[in-house]
């Protein structure tokens, strides 16, 4: 789910940049530093605006100036139980991996309805039943049943073993 979130971050600036456009530099640096990162429970998608930039404080020893910047960002946090649309990126007999933006989701074969069978002989290998085929590139609606945080990354386990989940579109290869 997407949120607007007020965050704070400390940035340092080399003395050689001290000057008129410091705020601009700090803002640029903020964007560069935080956009697209994952804090462990959510992804920072975009910095909307940075509304407070504190006075710079010189750090003893290094001479760098430290700024505390408060900013507002669009963050995305996947929740347990949330249903999201994903694209399948890899399929193997244990299940398939799908991606929803930066998030990688594994759907175990246990969490795929029984009638959707693993077919290792197809090209490409896929899970399929009469109507649908899940292979690389398929769009799949997945319910997240658990998330796991790693350093700088998030990763989830999903299920399509419920009504209205699973295959909903297949992008034909161009």
């Amino acid at each position: 789910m997407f949120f607007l979130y007020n965050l704070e971050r400390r940035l340092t600036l080399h003395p050689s940049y001290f000057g008129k456009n410091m705020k601009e530099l700090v803002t640029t640096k903020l964007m560069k530093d935080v956009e697209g990162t994952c804090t462990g429970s959510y992804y920072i998608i975009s910095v909307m605006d940075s509304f407070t930039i504190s006075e710079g404080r010189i750090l003893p020893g290094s001479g760098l100036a430290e700024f505390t910047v408060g900013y507002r960002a669009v963050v995305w946090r996947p929740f347990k139980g949330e249903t999201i649309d994903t694209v399948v990126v890899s399929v193997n007999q244990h299940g398939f991996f799908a991606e929803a933006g930066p998030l990688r989701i594994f759907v175990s074969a246990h969490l795929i309805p029984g009638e959707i069978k693993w077919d290792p002989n197809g090209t490409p290998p896929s899970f399929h039943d009469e109507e649908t085929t899940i292979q690389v590139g398929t769009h799949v609606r997945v319910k997240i049943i658990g998330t796991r945080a790693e350093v700088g990354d998030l990763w989830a386990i999903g299920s399509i073993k419920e009504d209205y989940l699973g295959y909903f579109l297949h992008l034909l290869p161009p």
Partner: protein
Amino acid sequence: MSDPRDHDQPDDSEEEEDFNPAPADNSDDEGNNAADNDEDVESSPRQTRKPSPARNDAADDDDEEGEGDEDDVAGANDDEEDEEEEDDEEDEEIQGHRRKRARRKDKRSAFFELEAEVDDEDEDEEDEDDAEHEGFIEHTEAGEAEQFAREDDARHRELDRRREMENDMDLEQEAERLKKQYGNKRSARGMGESAVVPQRLLLPSVDDPSIWGVRCKEGKEREVVFSIMQRIQQKQGTKDELGITAAFERGGPNSVMKGLIYVEAQRQTDILQALEGMLNVYPRTKLLLVDIKEMPDLLRVQKTPTLEPGAWVRLRRPPKHSGDLAQVIDITDNGLEARVKFIPRLDYGLRDDALAATTADGKRKRPMGPGPRPPQKLFSEVEARKRHPRYITGNPQTNNWQYNGDEFEKGFQVKDIKIQHLTIKDVNPTLEEVTKFASGGEDGVENIDLKSLAASLKDSTINVTYLPGDVVEVYDGEQKGVVGKATNVQGDIVTMEVVSGDLAGQTIEVPTKGLRKRFRPGDHVKVIGGSKYREEVGMVVKISEDRVTLLTDQTNTEITVFSKDLREASDIGGQGSLGQYEMTDLVQLDPTTVGCIVKIDRESMVILDQNGDKRHVMPSQIANKLPRRKLAVAADRNGAEIRPDDVVKEYGGMGRQGKIVHIHRTYVFCHTNATNENAGIFVSKVSNVATISAKGGRINAAANTQDLSTMNPAAKRPEAKNNMGPPKQMFGRDRLIGQTVTIKKGGYKGLLGRVKDTTDTHARIELHTKSKIISVAKTDVVVRDSVSGNVIKNYDSRKPGAFGMGRPGGDRAAPDWSNAGGRTPMASASSRTPAWKTPSAGAGGRTPAWNRNGDGGRTPAWAAADGSRTVNPYDGNRTAYGGSGGRTPAWSSGSKTPAPDSFGHGSKTPYGGSGSSDPWGSGSKTPYGAAPTPGASGGDSWGYTPGASGGSGPYDAPTPGAALLGAPTPAAMNAPTPGAYSAPTPGAMNAPTPGGGWQSGWGADSAPTPAAAAPTPAASGFSYAVNAPTPGAWAAETPAASGPRYEDD
């Protein structure tokens, strides 16, 4: 009979009856659990009891008889009566003597009327218990004899009459009546007091029959009891009915009471009688009298663990297999033996020879001696045939064999084993053991019956650990289905707080055996139990009953474990290390092979080596662990730099994409999330991957992304200022040429020579020793002073001119000067500026002079140089010259003056500055040499020089004048060093002068330096005039400050 008794009877009986039934019920409950056989056995003595005079009092007998009669008469009542009786009997057996007595009394009173007549019939059978009857009879006999006779007669007649009536009576009516009379009682007593009577009142007393334990053959307990029962039935109603009231056994496979049966009788002899000649029982051995206190314990019911086909057990008995896991195939009918299959431990006679040897020594051959037992291995027909072809029979189709008297089915040994030789509880089969059984399936498909495994495991609760905080679910018992959180665990009891359902919020206590841990898909759990997946951490993907499937964090594989082995985990980590080795570590297997650890088990690990092969290795097989080199760099197929943590993609092949974990020589180990295989690690050649993205965007790092925490590149000063410039380009003739050198290497080592010619790397050296020119690397020569032989380190900054001049004296005198000269600001533009810059240079006398390269041309330049050199610290050195010049007093003061300085520099600077070889040419030298000389001689040459310089002539004109004055000095100088010094001297002399001249002539145009010099010349001009020796000094020194000082001097 006595009516009052009759009247009393109902109350009495009610009371008594009420008293009785409760235990009857209890006993029922207990009895149900006990083997049915017991009951049967026990019921048999009851039947025999009736005729037994020894035990039963008359009343009792009467009861029975009466009942019997009634039964006969009123068949309809049979059932009820029987039941009642049975109950009663059970009471007796279990509760003991006292109750029996009580009942007897009751019955007697209850049946008083009916029994009176029966009594009569059976009177002769009355035994010692007749006391009460006697009393009764006595009472009747108390009257007179006639009365007795009359009564007797009347009684008989009445009896006859009643019999008549009874016969006449409708049987149905009779049934009705009996039902009315007794039927209610039963129900009444049954309802009332089951809970009221304390059990302790029902305990046996000394009056009850005793129980003896009788030895019998172990395992035959039940058979013995059965045969006792048979015997009782046989003897029933005969003369020699058995005098025992009960017999039972508490055998069972694990019982301590096996090998004993228990017989209840009044007297020991009854037992001996009853068991006479019976098989498998030894009444002649010592009988064990059971203490009264222990009697109830003897009958305490223990639930025996039930063994079902498919269950897992451990073997105890064949010592070779003790501790081995076995699976129950079947249980024999008598429940004493189980057919189990297990993995055989066979050596196929490999050790027979050794044993044969021992027999030769006369020792007894033992079939299974001590020593290492063979490992568990499925039966192999081939192996067996190798040594014992004769011992093996069987059917290859069904894969069933007999070998050495043992049966084998599909590789497993099958054997009937007594249940007491099996360990049934706490079997704890590990998955590995069980897998061995499963893998024996013909189709190779693993068909582990997790259900039976679970059942086996469930019995053992020892290794199930519940901790406060665990979410648990009750799956058995009254609270089934309740989910809660454990708050306290004490022994086998878990206190849990119910979180959902009707009981929500309550705290209940549950025994662990009905509990299991509860998880939900998505939970992050850790395996804590004894399975082989211990320490794995993962996320739950599936739960069915108490089996939980989870996807491990480490390897992304799915494993199934029992929920009891799981705990909620908050950490990630998990089983990632074995000793010093961790997942994805790079290790050296042998000098040419490295590998990446992709899986770690408890004792071994799987390594993906550089060739992409997987190997199972033990930690001891690893040569060493290669530290992770963060700085390792390689070039991908496009030549781009790749480092660990960069994302690369295979070119061709499988096109896998991953993050570099290790770079080792030409191999990259990468990790990808796209596959579970090898924990996502794959190996590739460096030349076979292409960079997708580099860590920190190294590749795309454009100029616009600046690092604001480091120096602003824009604010940095230009490079040239910070760094030393590149070494000045040498051009022109190699300074080495002409140097005196020694050779420090090679065959000519140590020889002295002179460099004749050089190339970039080599020098051709003319040896002093013999006339030979050799070629030696420049690095192999040491430049030496041609006179002193001292090593000259920086010969190339010297003015080789000195050497070139070939004037040893000069060399000797001014080595340091030459150095100084090299470094003088003279070289820098500033000093020369005015001269150079003057646009009029061309027109001006001086410019041409510069340009000309001519001798005279340089004269003014020297002057300029002098000015700049005023502060030259080297002046001091030059003092010596002054000294040598003989101008002593003047020079001493003048030693610091620029004049000498100018000499030095004057002489050398131009050379250095000129740079071209021309000035070096003999021709160029000549004028120098010549110049002073004329100066000294008179100024003709000066005249000549200005002439050369053209327009500057007028300015130069004074110089000669000065030169005239200076003439003596140079002369002095010239004396020792005719050539070299003669040249500078005039120059020096000239220098100030023109300076002054320029000053005046060009005015402001001349740079500051000249300006500074300007006054000097003026002064010096005078001083020259006045004081011959010092003029030069004055000229140089002058600049303001020194002027006064000098005057002080």
